[in-house]
C-alpha cells in the first residue's frame, strides 16, 4: 500500500534521537548484545545524526572495515496499522501501535530467518532429504512473529501442520528444525514426529498436528487447564480457513464459551484450503464472524504490528470474557505442501501481486528504511547473516545421526508409573505405592 506508506512518512516525525550503537552481533538475537565501544561509537554517531544518509559513512566504514552498528533503540515509535481492524461483537482495538526500533529490527530479523528457513526446507525437500509432507509458511511469517511478541512463554500456542515458523518463534533452534525434518536424533521430537509434529514443552508450544481441526479442541483443553490451575495465561489455538469448517471447532468454541475459558481461536486465513478457494468451501468466509456469540476480529495478517496489536487485545479480552476469534488475513506463497505446485488453483500473477504489495518482510523493511533505523546495506547484511545461520544449521543437521533402532519402541508408553505395577513389557521390577 504505497499511499499509506507515504502517509506514515509524512504524518510522523522522524526519530531525532541518535541511535545508540552496538556492534553487530554475529550470534542470534537471544544473546545479549556486547557492550559498545564508546570512542568509536561516539565518532560514528556524530556522523550518523548529522547526515541522514549512509552514503557519507560507506567509504569510512569500508575503509575502517568495521560493521556499522544497527539501531537497538527502545524509544517508542508510534505507527498505524495498514488497515483498521474489523470487529464482531466487540470494540476493535485502535489502529495506532507503539513499537520501537529494536522491536522492528527484531521483527525483521526473525521474519527473514523464518523465510530463509522455509526456502531452505524447500530445497532440502527437492533434494529428497526431507520426505513425506512438508508444509511451508513463507508469506505468513508475520502471524507467528507478531503473535509471539504479544505473548509470554506461559501462554500456550497450538497449531496445525504448518508449524515450522511457529516453533521457531517459540524458541526453537534451527538445528532442531532441520534435524527433525530430516529425521535425525537432534530433532525436537527425536526424529519420530516429522514436519507436522514439532513440539516444545518448555515454551508451551503444543504442536504440530496433522489432522485438520483436531488441534482446536486440544487448544481449548489447554485453556481449560490454564483456568483450572489459575495460571492467568491464555491459549492461542491456530487453524486455517480449511479447518474453519470442521464441526469440532464449533463444539469446542461452544464449550469454551460456556465454561469461560481463556481460549483464542486464530484462523490463519490464507484463502485456500489446499486446492479449494475459501469461497468454494465456506458459505460464509467471514471467519471472524462465525463464532456467532463469540466476539471476533479481522486482522491484516501480513502486518506484523497489526497482528501484535490484535493478539495483545485478544489476550486481555480472553482473560476477562472468554473465547474470542481472530481472523488473520494472510497468504502463503508456496502451495499447500511440497507436493502441491500452488499454481493450479490460483494464478502466478496473484502470487506475485501479493508478494509485491503485501509481503510482511518488505513492509518492515520499508518501515525501517523510511524511519532511518538502519540502512539498506545493514538489512542486507542481516539477511546474509541469517542465510549463513541457516546453512550452518543444515550442515550440522546433515551430520547428525539417524535415531537408533531401539528408539522405535521408546516413548510408546510412559514408564515409571509410580504404582505397584509392571511396565507394559513386564520387565520392570515392582514399584511400590507412594
Amino acid at each position, binding site marked *: 500500500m504505497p499511499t499509506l506508506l507515504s502517509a506514515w512518512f509524512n504524518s510522523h516525525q522522524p526519530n531525532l534521537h541518535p541511535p545508540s550503537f552496538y556492534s553487530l552481533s554475529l550470534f542470534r538475537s537471544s544473546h545479549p548484545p556486547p557492550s559498545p565501544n564508546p570512542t568509536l561509537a561516539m565518532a560514528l554517531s556524530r556522523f550518523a545524526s548529522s547526515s541522514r544518509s549512509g552514503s557519507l559513512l560507506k567509504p569510512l566504514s569500508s575503509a575502517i572495515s568495521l560493521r556499522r552498528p544497527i539501531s537497538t533503540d527502545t524509544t517508542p515509535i508510534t505507527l498505524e496499522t495498514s488497515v483498521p481492524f474489523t470487529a464482531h461483537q466487540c470494540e476493535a482495538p485502535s489502529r495506532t501501535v507503539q513499537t520501537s526500533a529494536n522491536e522492528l529490527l527484531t521483527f525483521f530479523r526473525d521474519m527473514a530467518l523464518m523465510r530463509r528457513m522455509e526456502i531452505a526446507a524447500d530445497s532440502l525437500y527437492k533434494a529428497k532429504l526431507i520426505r513425506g509432507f512438508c508444509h511451508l509458511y513463507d508469506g505468513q511469517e508475520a502471524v507467528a512473529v507478531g503473535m509471539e511478541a504479544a505473548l509470554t512463554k506461559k501462554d*500456550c500456542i*497450538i497449531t496445525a501442520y504448518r508449524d515450522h515458523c511457529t516453533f521457531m518463534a517459540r524458541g526453537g533452534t534451527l538445528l532442531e528444525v532441520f534435524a527433525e525434518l530430516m529425521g535425525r536424533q537432534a*530433532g525436537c*521430537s*527425536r*526424529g*519420530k*514426529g*516429522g514436519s507436522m509434529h514439532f*513440539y*516444545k*514443552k518448555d515454551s508451551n508450544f*503444543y*504442536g*504440530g*498436528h*496433522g*489432522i485438520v481441526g*483436531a488441534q*482446536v*479442541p*486440544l*487448544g*481449548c*483443553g*489447554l485453556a*481449560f*487447564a*490454564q*483456568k*483450572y*490451575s489459575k495460571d492467568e495465561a491464555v491459549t492461542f489455538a491456530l487453524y486455517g480457513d480449511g479447518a474453519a469448517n470442521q*464441526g*469440532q471447532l464449533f*463444539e*469446542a468454541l*461452544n*464449550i469454551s464459551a*460456556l*465454561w469461560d475459558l481463556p481460549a483464542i481461536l486464530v484462523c490463519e486465513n490464507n484463502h485456500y484450503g489446499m486446492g479449494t478457494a475459501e469461497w468454494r468451501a465456506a458459505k460464509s468466509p467471514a471467519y471472524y464472524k462465525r463464532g456467532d456469540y463469540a466476539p471476533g476480529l479481522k486482522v491484516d495478517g501480513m502486518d506484523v504490528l497489526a497482528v501484535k496489536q490484535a493478539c495483545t487485545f485478544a489476550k486481555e479480552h480472553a482473560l476477562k470474557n472468554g473465547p474470542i476469534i481472530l481472523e488473520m488475513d494472510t497468504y502463503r506463497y508456496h502451495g499447500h505442501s511440497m507436493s502441491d505446485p500452488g499454481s493450479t488453483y490460483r494464478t502466478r500473477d496473484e502470487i506475485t501481486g501479493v508478494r509485491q504489495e503485501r509481503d510482511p518482510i518488505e513492509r518492515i523493511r520499508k518501515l525501517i528504511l523510511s524511519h532511518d533505523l538502519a540502512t539498506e546495506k545493514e538489512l542486507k547484511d542481516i539477511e546474509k547473516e541469517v542465510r549463513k545461520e541457516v546453512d550452518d544449521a543444515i550442515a550440522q543437521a546433515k551430520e547428525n545421526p539417524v535415531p537408533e533402532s531401539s528408539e522405535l*519402541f*521408546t*516413548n*510408546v*508408553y*510412559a514408564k515409571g*508409573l*509410580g*504404582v*505397584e*505395577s*509392571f*511396565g*507394559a*513389557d*513386564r*520387565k*520392570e*521390577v515392582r514399584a511400590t*505405592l507412594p
Partner: protein
Amino acid sequence: MAAIFQGVGAAATLSSSPSNSFVPKKFLTSPRRSFCVRKVPSSVVVRSDGSVNFDLNSKSRRAQQLVANAVATKADSSAASSSSNPGHELLLFEALREGLEEEMERDPCVCVMGEDVGHYGGSYKVTKDLAKKFGDLRVLDTPIAENSFTGMGIGAAMTGLRPVVEGMNMGFLLLAFNQISNNCGMLHYTSGGQFTIPIVIRGPGGVGRQLGAEHSQRLESYFQSIPGIQMVACSTPYNAKGLMKAAIRSENPVILFEHVLLYNLKERIPDEDYICNLEEAEMVRPGEHVTILTYSRMRYHVMQAAKTLVNKGYDPEVIDIRSLKPFDLYTIGNSVKKTHRVVIVEECMRTGGIGASLTAAITENFNDYLDAPIMCLSSQDVPTPYAGTLEEWTVVQPAQIVTAVEQLCQ
C-alpha cells in the same frame, strides 16, 4: 451371580494380584512378538442353536485321563472373609465412584468430564454427588460433543491435569475416534516423549438388555490397535475400584471398559487403599484341564458354565484377562503351559475382536504347549438385534461354553 471375593489375607490389600503372587522373573515372552509366519488357528463356529463345529488341525492329542471327581477349588472365598478387616459391601458402580472419589481427594489435578456427570449425577450414577462435593470446575457437564470434549480432555492432560472422560456409552466414543487414536495414543511418541497423556477414558459398553444395535457396541475391538494406549476391562467391584484408581494414577492413557449389565453387582471389598495392576490378569479359578480366558461380563457366563463343567468332572482354569492391551501373556502363558488347552470366551465379534488378537498372540508364543487348537467363542458378526431371543443368540451363552470345553477336552 455373586461376585467372588478376591482378597486373600493381608497380602491382598497391597498386592496387585489377589491370588498367587507372581515372581516377575524368567518371564519368557515380551509383547514384541516375532513376526514369524503363524499357523492359522482353527475357528469355531458357534451356531445359534448352541451346536459347535470346529475343524481340528490333525495334531496328535495327548490322551488325557480326566479326573472324574475334579474338585472345583473355590477361589479362597472362605479364607478371604477371615482376613483381618471385614471390608464393606457395595455395588460395582459405587465401587467405581469410591475409587474416583478417593483419587479426586488425593490429587487435585483429577477432574471428570462427561455428559450429565455433574448435576445429574451420571447416567449410571458413577459420579453421583461428586459435583456437590468437588464443584463445577472439577466435575464438568459437557454438551453432547464427544469429539471436542475428548479432545479437550487430551489437551488438558498434555499440561499435566488428569481428566477422567466419561462416554455415556462407549459407542458414542466412536465420534471421538480421531482424538483417541491420533492425539491420545500417539502424542507421547510423536513428541519424542515430551508430553504424557495421563487421561482415563471410561464408560459402559457391551451388549445390554435389548438396547439396540448402536447402544450395544464393543469398542475394545476397534481401539485395540491404537499404539500408546492401555485398555482394561473391569468385572467385579473389587477390580473396578482397583483399576479405576490405577488408571487415574497411570501416566499413560487408559481406556477403562465397564459393562452396562454389571453395574449392580454386589461384593465386599477391603476398606484400605488398594489398586489393581493395570497389566495383570486375574486368576478366577485355578484348574488343570483347560484354560478359559475371558473378561468383563462373559466372566459370569464362564463361571456359570464352570459350575456345570465341574459337575461333569472337568477342572477348568478360569482367567479374567482384565488387561486387554497389553495382554498379560505371563499369566496366560503359565496357564497354557499347565493345561495345554485354551478356550477364549469374549463378547466382541468374531472378526477382529480381542479374542482374535489373543488367539494370535497365544499361538505365536505358546504354540508348542498347545495340545489342541485354540477355541475362540465370540459374539456373532451381526449388529445386535432388539428382539430378546435374537440378542441372546448374539452373545456366547454358558451352554455353548460347556459344549466347547467338552469338545476340546475329548
